[in-house]
């Protein structure tokens, strides 16, 4: 597979490659995860005390990761924007509920973002809209403007490298779920493996990623 972050069979029954065309020109570097992580911790603390300027600065740190993730998962640019907006408002609302002892601010925000994006996809699926829009594409589409744009960047490169250390099934299980917004049962369908195997591979894959990325334990 040319890019481990681009799940090969992602578009099975999905919205295909709606998001690939016309990338916005203002795509900006994700920045170094650690630096923005520390920024985010401090800014979220101030946001919790109602500091709107801190929230503004927090927005500048986290909006691109949140939006990029939403874009990956929901694909539709307008929906991705809505999800980003919802997530940022939720961050403002719940800032005081964030507990630094339970992980970094960035992880907290990205967890909210992913959940929102996936909820959105599942609701769309339930509403049948996603199927109605689905275009059946092959597994080609190796060309990835976003990927190429950020490829040289540090975080992208690290994650890419670490994803390569996973077995094929681990990698597919993790990326189809995370970037594709698929449930483990759907992933099992897509890769033709038993659901129990897939969920085990998801856990093993994340453990391997965690160790490779040096996520604090």
């Amino acid at each position: 597979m040319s890019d481990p972050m681009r799940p090969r069979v992602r578009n099975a029954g999905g919205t295909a490659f709606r998001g690939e065309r016309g990338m916005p020109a203002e795509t900006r570097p994700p920045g170094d995860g650690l630096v923005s992580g520390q920024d985010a911790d401090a800014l979220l603390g101030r946001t919790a005390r109602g500091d709107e300027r801190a929230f503004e600065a927090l927005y500048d740190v986290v909006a691109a990761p949140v939006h990029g993730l939403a874009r990956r998962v929901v694909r539709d640019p307008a929906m991705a924007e809505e999800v980003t907006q919802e997530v940022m408002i939720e961050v403002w609302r719940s800032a005081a509920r964030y507990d630094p002892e339970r992980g970094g601010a960035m992880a907290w925000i990205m967890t909210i973002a992913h959940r929102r994006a996936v909820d959105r996809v599942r609701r769309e699926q339930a509403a049948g809209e996603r199927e109605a829009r689905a275009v059946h594409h092959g597994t080609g589409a190796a060309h990835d403007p976003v990927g190429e744009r950020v490829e040289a960047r540090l975080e992208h490169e690290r994650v890419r490298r670490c994803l390569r250390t996973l077995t094929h099934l681990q990698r597919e299980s993790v990326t189809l779920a995370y970037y594709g917004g698929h449930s483990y049962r759907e992933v099992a369908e897509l890769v033709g493996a038993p659901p129990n195997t897939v969920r085990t591979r998801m856990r093993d894959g994340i453990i391997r990623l965690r160790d490779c990325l040096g996520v604090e334990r």
Partner: protein
Amino acid sequence: MTDDLHTLAGAYALDAIDDDVERRRFEAHLAGCETCATELREFQATTARLGLAVAEAPPPRLRDRVLADIRDVRQLPPVSPRRAEVRPRRWRRTVAAGLAAAACLVTAASVGVAVHERQRVDQAQAAYQEVAFVLSAPDARSATGRAGGGGTVTIVASASRGRVVVASAGLRTLPSSKAYQLWLINADGPRSAGFLPDDRSRPVVAGAWRPVDRLGVTVEPAGGSARPTTTPIVLISAT
């Protein structure tokens, strides 16, 4: 922990469990398993990195919209931090069932909320936060009572929060002219604490709860009664 639940941690961190029952089982398990909670935090920090790697700035107009929006959004109060540390072990087990029940109901409550109905989303979230506010109290206690006529009523009560969360399952369906009314009952007599919602899957939070109070449920005319007019189908004490 069972292997079964253990292997779900990865799928959970990836939001890849679409079966509500299964997700609730895992969440209930988390509430009582410190090592699992730690593992999940590491997993979430790991998956966050997958997200950071695909960052892509949103259009500038979104920034203005969000900054304008938050002026109209009230921030939630904090919940007690370090609750995992102060929470006695025994409590965790007792409340796990209640937590699972309530979490499940909360999930059910937020499912099916129309996407564009911002207000309803906010209401569901507010309800969720209110429930979480009680469940997260260090002194939260849970108890379940079996109702005469079938079904169960579970309460999670906190003296420090002064509130009780009431959730039910499997209660007999009432005609539209009737409702399940809640009562807080102590030596001074009963006080009305509202109703179980028509959408029986939703937990409700009743205020002004004190440790001396028991929770009773009676069948009343749909508009409610000033005092119970029937025998409680269930009476639960949280202490």
